[in-house]
C-alpha cells in the first residue's frame, strides 16, 4: 500500500485516539525537556519505562480482557500476594526458580477463581474481582505475618534480587524486556490469532459470538488467567527488584491499569481497543508523573495536575474525534 495524503488522512480519522495521545506525549516531552535539562536522557526514559513496566505488562492482557467487555480489579492484590509468596518460599528454602514456578501457578489460581465466577457463573465482574481483591490482599498480609512481620526481606537468599535486577544483554533491565515481551505477545494475539479476533467479537456482541460457535467462556476464562499470571509475574519481578516483599504494595494498581487501557481508547463495554493505544495511554500517565516529580512539584499539586492531564487528554480526544462538539 502506498503512503499518500488520503491514506494519512484516513489513518488520522480512524486512529484519532492514538494520534491525540502521541500528540499529547510529544507536547509533554517538548515542554519537559525545555523545563528540566535532566528530562531528555536515556536513564530518565529508562526510569519512565520502569515505572510503567508493571502497569503495561498487566494491561497488555487486561486490555484484551476489556475488549471482551470484562475487567479484573484484583490485579493489585494478586501482585502483592505473589510477591509475598515468592519471598516466603525463597526464604524458607525453596529454590528460586521453583518458587517462581509455584508462585506463577498460584497466581493463575487466583485468575481461575475470577474465571470461574465471572466467565462460568456469570457474576458481575466488579463484585467478583473485588472479592478476590479482598481475599488475595488478606492472604498476602497473613503470609507475611506467618513469616513474622509485615515485610519479608532479611533471610532472603542473596540471589533473590538477581532476577529483578538482571540486565538483558547487559543493558536492558529485565522489567522493560518483560514489558516489551508482553506487549509483543498481545500485539501478536490481537493481530494474528483467532483468540484476538474472538475477543473483539465477544465484546462487540456476546450473543452473536455464542451463535457463531465461539467458545466465549473459554476465551474470557483464559484471559482472566493470563491477567492473573502477568500480575503474579509482576509481583515476582517487583519484589526481586527491590529485594523486599511487602503485602501492601500495588494498592490501586487496578485503577492505573484501567486508566492506561481507557486512555488508550478501549471501551469499558468492549469491542474496541488496541494494545498500542494502551501503551500510549500508559506512557502519558508515566511521563506525567515523571515530569511532575522532575519539576519538583509538591505532592498535593501533583495530584491535581494528574487529574487535569487525565481529563484533558480525553477532552482533546473528543474534540478531534467529534469536531462538532464544543
Amino acid at each position, binding site marked *: 500500500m502506498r503512503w499518500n495524503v488520503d491514506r494519512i488522512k484516513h489513518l488520522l480519522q480512524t486512529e484519532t485516539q492514538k494520534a491525540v495521545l502521541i500528540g499529547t506525549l510529544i507536547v509533554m516531552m517538548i515542554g519537559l525537556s525545555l523545563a528540566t535539562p535532566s528530562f531528555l536522557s536515556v536513564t530518565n526514559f529508562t526510569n519512565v519505562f520502569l515505572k510503567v513496566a508493571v502497569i503495561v505488562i498487566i494491561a497488555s492482557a487486561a486490555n484484551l480482557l476489556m475488549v471482551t467487555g470484562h475487567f479484573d480489579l484484583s490485579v493489585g492484590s494478586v501482585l502483592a500476594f505473589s510477591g509475598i509468596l515468592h519471598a516466603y518460599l525463597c526464604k524458607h528454602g525453596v529454590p528460586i526458580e521453583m518458587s517462581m514456578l509455584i508462585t506463577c501457578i498460584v497466581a493463575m489460581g487466583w485468575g481461575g477463581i475470577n474465571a470461574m465466577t465471572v466467565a462460568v457463573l456469570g457474576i458481575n465482574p466488579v463484585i467478583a474481582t473485588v472479592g478476590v481483591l479482598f481475599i488475595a490482599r488478606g492472604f498476602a498480609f497473613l503470609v507475611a505475618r506467618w513469616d513474622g512481620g509485615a*515485610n519479608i526481606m532479611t533471610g532472603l537468599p542473596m540471589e533473590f534480587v538477581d532476577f529483578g535486577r538482571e540486565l538483558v544483554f547487559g543493558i536492558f533491565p529485565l522489567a522493560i524486556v518483560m514489558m516489551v515481551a508482553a506487549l509483543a505477545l498481545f500485539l501478536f494475539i490481537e493481530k494474528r490469532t483467532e483468540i484476538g479476533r474472538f475477543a473483539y467479537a465477544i465484546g462487540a456482541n456476546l450473543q452473536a459470538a455464542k451463535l457463531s460457535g465461539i467458545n466465549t467462556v473459554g476465551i474470557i476464562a483464559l484471559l482472566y488467567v493470563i491477567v492473573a499470571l502477568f500480575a503474579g509475574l509482576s509481583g515476582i519481578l517487583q519484589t526481586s527488584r527491590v529485594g523486599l516483599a511487602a503485602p501492601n*504494595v500495588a494498592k490501586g494498581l487496578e485503577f492505573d491499569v484501567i486508566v492506561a487501557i481507557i486512555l488508550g481508547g478501549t471501551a469499558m463495554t468492549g469491542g474496541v481497543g488496541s494494545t498500542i493505544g494502551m501503551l500510549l495511554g500508559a506512557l502519558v500517565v508515566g511521563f506525567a508523573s*515523571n515530569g511532575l516529580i522532575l519539576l519538583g512539584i509538591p505532592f498535593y499539586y501533583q495530584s491535581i495536575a494528574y487529574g487535569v492531564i487525565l481529563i484533558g487528554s480525553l477532552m482533546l480526544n473528543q474534540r478531534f474525534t467529534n469536531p462538532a462538539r464544543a
Partner: protein
Amino acid sequence: SIAATAGLADDKIVLGKIPFTLEHSYHQSIVEIFSDYAEKNYGAETIVVDGQASSESSLSAVENLIAQKVDGIALHSPDIGMTATAVEAAHKAGIPIVTTLIYPSTKTAPHIQPKEEFSSFRMGEVAAEQWMTAFPDKPVKVAILNFGGFEQIAKLRTEPFFKGVQSVAPDAELVAMQNGFGSTIKSMEVMLDILQANPDVNIIFGANDDMALGALAATEQLGRGKMKDGAPLTEIIAGVDGGENAMVKVFNPNSSFKLTHGQVRDNGRAEVDTLMAMIEGTIEMDKWLEVQTLSPEFDYWNSSVPAAQKFLEENFGFEKDLQALVDTQR
C-alpha cells in the same frame, strides 16, 4: 473528675488497642507487645481493632470498643483533631483512654509520646558529619521521602532530621521532598525520578524504613548505594523504625543505608501501664499526663551490633542472630 468505674466488677480486665494500621510491621509489633505485656503483667485481655490509617475508621473503632464495654482504650490515631473527639467519647462512657504519638488538640487524657525528634535530629547530625568528613567540598544536598505531608511526621521526623543536618552543614540544601507513600516500591520509583533531576543528592531520609529501603534500591539500580567499609561514596541513607530489615543494612559496611531509630516496647508497655494505672485509680483518667519514651538511634559508626541485637529482641521479638544476618549480605 470522672471515675473509672466501668468493668471493675468483671473478673477479667479487657483492654482495647487501636493501632494506626496493622499493615506495617511497626504496628504489628506494638500490638503484640501490648497484648503480651497486658496478659503477663496484669492478666488483662486485649481486643485489637485496626484503625486502618483512617480517622473515620479509628473513631469507629473507638465506638465499637466502647460498645463492647472494654475497661480501657489505647489509641494511636491518624489525626490530631479526631483524637480529641475519641477521648471525649471514651470519657463520656466512663472508659479510660490513652493516646499515643499524635498529640490530642485538647489535653484531657494521659498521652504516650516517643521523643523521636531527638533521634531524628541526631541522625541528621551524624549523616552530615560523615558526609562532610568524607567529602568536605561536596555541598550537602538532602532528599526526603514522606507520607504526603502528615504534620506529625514532619514534626517528629523530617523537620528535626533536616535541622540536624543543618546544624552541621549550615548551607545544606533540601532539594526534594516527595511522597513515598510509605511503600518500598513507590519510594524506589519516586527516588529514581528525584535522582534523575538531582543526581548530586547525597543525604536521603525516608520517614520510615520501608521508604529508606526503596531509596536504597533506587540508588543501587543506578550503580550507587554502596559504601566502602562504612565510608560514604555516593550518599548516606537514613530511615525510621529500626526493624530487622533496616538493621541488617545499617550494619552492613557496604550499604549506604546507615542510620535509623525506633521504639516499640517502651511505647507498648507505657500504654498498658498507664491504662492499668487509670483503671486501678492511681492516675486520673481525665488529666493531662505526658509519658515520654525514647526512640534510640542506631547508626553504623556509633552503635554496636550487640546493642542492636538486644533492641531487636526487645522490640520486635527478634530471635535470630543479627551479626550472622549482616554477614550473609553482599
